[in-house]
């Protein structure tokens, strides 16, 4: 199936938002989207999946390539490896024996499906995601959004598997806590 520029251009804004969420850098996001559209023009769209799905899968590879190249050239910004080994940030949630303190014990989230339909919820989510240090956000994205396995992530970023697990743990703790404080645990916002 041949693709024309107009058909591809339609998906450009979507791809750009996708890339920006993963990379947090407009210049880089523009670049990977450009590369993706060029690759799409030269590539072979079978028509088995939707055009958007196909473009997104090319884009994922371009993003991963970029991350690989960057981490070879310069280590990730933010923490050093030793900082990632500590789990102390979240110690305050637990008592001395390692059990949840009474006020921080996770309560059930009410109506999570309704939240996903709420514009306000996505604003809160966006703010919570931005709150994560870039390094955490990147590893979280690679794992949860791009569905890479731990070994692939470690190799791409040259970090140890243990470190990777710790980073993911901290990302999940941070995101969960932020959504809990600002949405699910806040009775005014729910419903």
């Amino acid at each position, binding site marked *: 199936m041949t693709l024309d520029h107009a058909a591809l251009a339609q998906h450009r804004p979507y791809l750009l938002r*996708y890339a920006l969420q993963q990379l947090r850098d407009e210049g880089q996001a523009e670049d990977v989207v450009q590369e993706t559209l060029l690759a799409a023009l030269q590539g072979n769209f079978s028509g088995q999946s939707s055009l958007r799905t196909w473009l*997104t899968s090319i884009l994922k590879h371009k993003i991963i390539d970029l991350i690989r190249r960057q981490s070879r050239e310069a280590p990730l910004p933010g923490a050093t490896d030793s900082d990632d080994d500590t789990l102390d940030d979240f110690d305050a949630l637990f008592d001395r024996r390692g*059990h949840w303190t009474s006020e921080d014990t*996770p309560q059930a989230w009410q109506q999570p499906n309704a939240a996903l339909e709420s514009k306000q919820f996505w604003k809160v989510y*966006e703010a919570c995601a931005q709150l994560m240090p870039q390094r955490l956000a990147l590893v979280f994205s690679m794992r*949860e959004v791009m569905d890479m396995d731990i070994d692939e992530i470690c190799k791409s970023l040259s970090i140890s598997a243990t470190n990777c*697990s710790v980073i*993911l743990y901290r990302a*999940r703790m941070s995101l969960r806590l932020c959504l809990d404080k600002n949405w699910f645990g806040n009775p005014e916002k729910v419903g």
Partner: protein
Amino acid sequence: MLACKQATQLASAALDRKLSVAEQIQLRLHLAMCSGCRNFSRQINLLRQISQRRAEHNDDA
């Protein structure tokens, strides 16, 4: 019995790798007795769905 702190680490690891049999048993025992960690575990699973949905349905954002 595991403390909640370790249970949350295992619950997170379970999303990324296959736990050993011993780890699975420890985690399951803990979750059976601890509603806080049950909620935690459910919620980090939900984070996966939420983050995928945000990336793929970013039109409304």
